[in-house]
């Protein structure tokens, strides 16, 4: 089978999406261009006495951008990917020699590669900054950079998988509500002498926190240079790595369950 034509379909579908152009606009004009245009100034400042502090500030800005990317833009791409697979229009393709599995895998490969290429842009920006300021890149940092991929892919997969079976607005609202409220809920109910109900609520929100990225932990995953993990040990990194693995397994399982459901047309009676 000529897979080139399925990718062509997804490519044209993406170009047709307003959300896609919004993501591209933000990536280019908000994240990449300002950094690239400031390279001469960075080179100049790297010779000054405050170079360490300035480097730290620039990296923090990149961390913030990567965080915004993971928090807002990756889910937006997730919606595009999810909807591309459940749209009524996909039926026209399914009557040809294509299976749902083909469309599923091709769709996620296409959007996954797209996401990966944006992540690479960030890595290049990180490398440019560290090169200009002569910052050594230890192996530990490389490892963190790789882990930061989870921070991008998890919200993307989370939203895209759930977009397969629910309306995007509902998915995004759920995503934001759980994202913002769950971490604080667990802490709120956890205190000495808490009642049975409070224990139950604390544990429930903890369990949900495992399957939905929490704000703080998410920042740790996506932002390799973040000061939050400055105090962290190898154990912390390992913990987040496991967290990412757990998340991936959960998503794979939910994806499999949705695939098993077989009819990809949403809201079908």
């Amino acid at each position, binding site marked *: 089978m000529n897979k080139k034509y399925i990718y062509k379909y997804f490519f044209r579908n993406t170009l047709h999406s307003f959300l896609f152009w919004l993501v591209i606009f933000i990536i280019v004009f908000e994240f990449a261009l300002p950094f690239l245009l400031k390279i001469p100034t960075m080179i100049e400042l790297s010779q000054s006495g405050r170079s360490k502090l300035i480097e730290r500030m620039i990296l923090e800005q990149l961390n913030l951008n990567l965080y915004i990317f993971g928090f807002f833009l990756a889910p937006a791409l997730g919606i595009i990917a999810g909807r591309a697979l459940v749209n009524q229009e996909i039926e026209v393709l399914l009557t040809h*020699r294509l299976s749902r599995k083909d469309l599923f895998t091709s769709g996620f490969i296409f959007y996954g590669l797209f996401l990966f290429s944006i992540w690479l842009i960030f890595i290049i920006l990180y490398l440019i900054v560290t090169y200009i300021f002569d910052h050594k890149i230890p192996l530990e940092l490389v490892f963190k950079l790789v882990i930061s991929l989870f921070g991008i892919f998890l919200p993307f997969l989370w939203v895209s998988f759930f977009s397969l079976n629910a309306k995007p607005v509902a998915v995004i609202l759920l995503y934001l509500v759980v994202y913002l409220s769950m971490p604080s809920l667990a802490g709120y109910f956890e205190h000495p002498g808490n009642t049975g109900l409070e224990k139950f609520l604390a544990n429930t929100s903890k369990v949900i926190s495992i399957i939905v990225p929490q704000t703080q932990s998410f920042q740790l995953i996506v932002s390799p240079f973040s000061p939050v993990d400055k105090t962290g040990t190898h154990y912390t990194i390992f913990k987040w790595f496991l967290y990412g693995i757990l998340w991936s397994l959960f998503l794979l399982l939910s994806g499999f369950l949705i695939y098993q459901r077989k009819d990809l047309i949403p809201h079908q009676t």
Partner: protein
Amino acid sequence: MAEPIISARNLTKYYKSPGLSKKAIPALEQINLDIFPGEIIALLGPNGAGKTTFLRILFGLIYPTSGEVLVFSSRPQEKSWKNRAGYVPEHYDPPKFLTGYELLEIGARVNGLSKNDFLSRLEWLEESLNLKEILNLNISQYSRGMLQQLALAGCFIHNPELIVLDEPTANLDALSRKKLQELLWEMAQENKTILISSHILSELEELCNRVILIDKGKIIQQGYIKDLLTSDGGYTICFKGFTTIPESLNALGNINYDPKLEIAYLETRTEYEKDRAVKILTENEVSIEFIEPKQKTLEEYFLEILEQKELEKYFLKITEEGK
């Protein structure tokens, strides 16, 4: 006997009713049928009978609740057989961001056609379906008729052995309808298997050789069209050479008179009425041109069966009420 191309066994489909209700709505119940290579089949039934559900199950777009259907001895969701079949759905909703040409190219290429084969098939379809002016337009600019033409082109582009058409002439103008008829005739000559669901029964009558009648999710009748449409006692008697039509004939059936040819046709309902008419005509020395058994049209047959079903339902209801 050849292997059936489509084989359904106890095929049942229930839809979930909307909302929180757990009530299931039956769409197909215990459908058993075989369709063999070269057959041209009319799938008939009133609205909501389950025809579209059956066709969508065939192409793996929805899944049956129970039972099994095999197409080319494979399950519907397997892709291996899909390049051997073409489908025009009832509600064709193609991606609006492509041009007609791009959509046909994607369909043809994933079905394994080479670029050259695709282009030569396309050239033939442009001619046969009058597509020339629409293929380079964006699909979002298509009218309903154009969409239907594109759906047909998408179905035929890879030269399939099995053609499944759900209301293929909907939204088509008279010329496109005629072109489609000619195309289907051509395909019938090539021994292709065609399954058509349509409400325009006159179009099916000439083309199809078997009829499957579905109502409320069940097959209520199926058979060869020539057997189903034969006379059940009615005759057409053609006569001429009279000054006035004998009055006693009026009671024996409808008389249509053609003043131009000075010829009349009497349509009797029974063998007895035919014999009586022949006797009267002979006594009045009227010349009988021919007598032939009356052929029902597919439409008459369809309505007759449905009326029969309605009557049966009515009698069942009053019998139950009587108990």
